[in-house]
């Protein structure tokens, strides 16, 4: 119980840190940490039924989210020679305040849904929602392509936390498929970032504005 709570608090902290951080390198490390921490979640949330399935899931998650994605994104940042987010649409202080607001909304929402009794922690659902909304917020409020991918990962982490904690009956095949999809998604996005970088000499998505009505 307590271990799960520590993990969830770490998730909240990493999200807040991301909302208030301008350095891409630090942000990537934070997301990597969040991935590793979440990888431990299935093991700690279901201590009474420690099985091969959860072990495999944890190992896969940690390997992908903690090592492969950060490495890949670091390469993207390194090749693009950018280290900072440039003036985001929403400033960092405002983002932090928005983060707190989002957290409050997440708690409020979870009050309204009947929670299963088997929950590992009463914080699980609100924190998962918080991650999801924070990820969405990062995607719409940041300009760098890498930041947006990070937002996507945070969003995905939230969905993952929810799935691990609340829907333990999902089968390994589906979870493996989800992981694979996310992997390919980040891979394809990373490739696209390389191309954006080569084509435009920048990776600011606000300058991707040719196509509109």
């Amino acid at each position, binding site marked *: 119980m307590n271990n799960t709570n520590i993990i969830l608090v770490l998730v909240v902290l990493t999200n807040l840190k991301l909302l208030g951080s301008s350095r891409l390198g630090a942000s990537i490390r934070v997301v990597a940490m969040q991935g590793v921490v979440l990888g431990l979640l299935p093991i700690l949330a279901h201590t009474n039924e420690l099985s091969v399935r959860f072990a495999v899931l944890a190992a896969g998650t940690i390997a992908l989210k903690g090592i492969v994605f950060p490495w890949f994104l670091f390469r993207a940042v390194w090749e693009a020679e950018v280290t900072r987010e440039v003036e985001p649409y929403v400033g960092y202080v405002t983002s932090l305040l928005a983060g707190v607001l989002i957290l409050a909304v997440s708690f409020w929402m979870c009050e*309204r*849904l*009947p929670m*299963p*009794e*088997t929950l590992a922690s009463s914080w699980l659902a609100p924190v998962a929602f918080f991650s*999801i909304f924070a990820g*969405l917020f990062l*995607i719409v409020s940041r300009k760098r*392509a890498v930041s*947006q991918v990070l937002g*996507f990962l945070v*969003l*995905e982490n*939230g*969905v993952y936390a*929810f*799935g691990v904690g*609340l*829907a333990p*009956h*999902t*089968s390994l*095949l*589906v979870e493996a*498929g*989800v992981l*694979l*999809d996310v992997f*390919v*998604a980040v891979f*394809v*996005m990373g490739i*696209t970032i390389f*191309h*954006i970088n080569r*084509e*435009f000499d920048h990776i600011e*998505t606000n300058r*991707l*504005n*040719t*196509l509109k*009505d």
Partner: protein
Amino acid sequence: MILLLFIIPALAGLAAFALRSPAVRRGLLIGTALVHAALTAICWQTTPSPALGGWLALDAAGLLFLSITSGLFLVASFYAAGYLGQQANKHITDAEEGMLFDNAPEAVFIGCLLLFLATMTLVTVSQHFGLLWVAVEATTLASAPLIYFHRHHRSLEATWKYLLVCSVGIALALLACFFLGVAATPPNGEGFPLVLSDLVAKAQQLQTPWLKAACLLFFVGYGTKMGLAPLHTWLPDAHSEAPSVVSALLSGAVLNCAFLGLVRVQQVCVAAGLGAFGRDVWLLLGLVSLVVGAVFIIGQTDYKRLLAYSSVENMGIIALGVGLGSAGAFGAMLHAVNHSLAKAMLFLLSGNILARYQTKNIAQVRGLLSAAPVTGVLWVAGFLAITGTPPFGLFLSKFTILKAAIDGGRTWIVVMFLVAVGVIFIGMTTAFFGMAQGVPDKGASKLANRDRWWQIAPPAVLGLLVLWLGLAIPGPLNNVLRQIAATLGDAP
């Protein structure tokens, strides 16, 4: 059998990455499409047995959409083979901005095209919601490189938007899957798997608040992919910048795959007694899409974007149909078939026009009928088909939906539907007839002497099919449509 449907294109796709000879690769593309279509045809004869413990199975809805996908892919593969032959030279001058760009390697294009087919097949045969999600997301990923075939900044922009908007949308659909999982776990009992038949059978045990939340999230997630306004933002960009053959597949097949996902959700909702709740969402999104489509079609200057917005509009009509209950759902399914055929035909033709006129601007395309008579005639025919003029199939399906609305006494919906369709008709008339008539530039008539067979035959075949569906709905198809519609309306 079901596994073969999926595995053959997947393996062929992987093989295409490795093959060196362009001719063999294109042969592989057409060959795989033929085999896939043949397998699909067999499925109409004998229902294949479920695989993977019921996770993969072919029900009526799956069969319908599998057939659309397979048929379109077959037609498109001929077009693609010809198109790739034409695009083989390395540096190409961009039509709009005059810069040079390269194409993606052909192996990547064909490989992704085949994987795209495999993933779409998986969508149609998935009975498990988790697997369905995996498949839908996979279609996004397999098609992203296709949109970035022309390696220049506009297509890159379109690809990025497509990837990000769809991935985010679909991530929410994953959350919806988990919601569904929670809904399927009774407070004191074992949960049951998220297989469609199980969910429908035990629908009464589902927890309503979670099911409602899941339903809404599914609408956001798959609705994004389906191009329902206001979640359609990626659609015009991706459709206008992708090669025409890819646009045809995106519009004709991918949107339908997402639609199928939502149909599955609605089936569960209906079984759980939440049919009315789901239908309201369908109606709302449908009307918004209709209006957005109409607004952006008026005064549109780019004919590929025009077609893309027309897709938004037609997805709106389909959503409206499902929202009107069983009778409307019949029309909606028919409309999905018709729209796929007609829109794919128009996108393929737009490729011909683009190749000839080197512009996507409506105002700069003049005299299509005299410069390229066959393409021109087909273009006008396609216009008549897509706007729902008799005797084409879309007339029939739109009329069915309208009739369902009138029978249901939904006056406002009828009025909005008619106004939107009328506005769209006017907007498209201006664009299409302006392009078809007039005197062509010298360059346009001289440039390519005549349209090749691969540019003409595929759209012509599609056009004939739409015409056929307008004159008579074949018996087996009618049966399938009825079966689907029955699962979408509340039992009387």
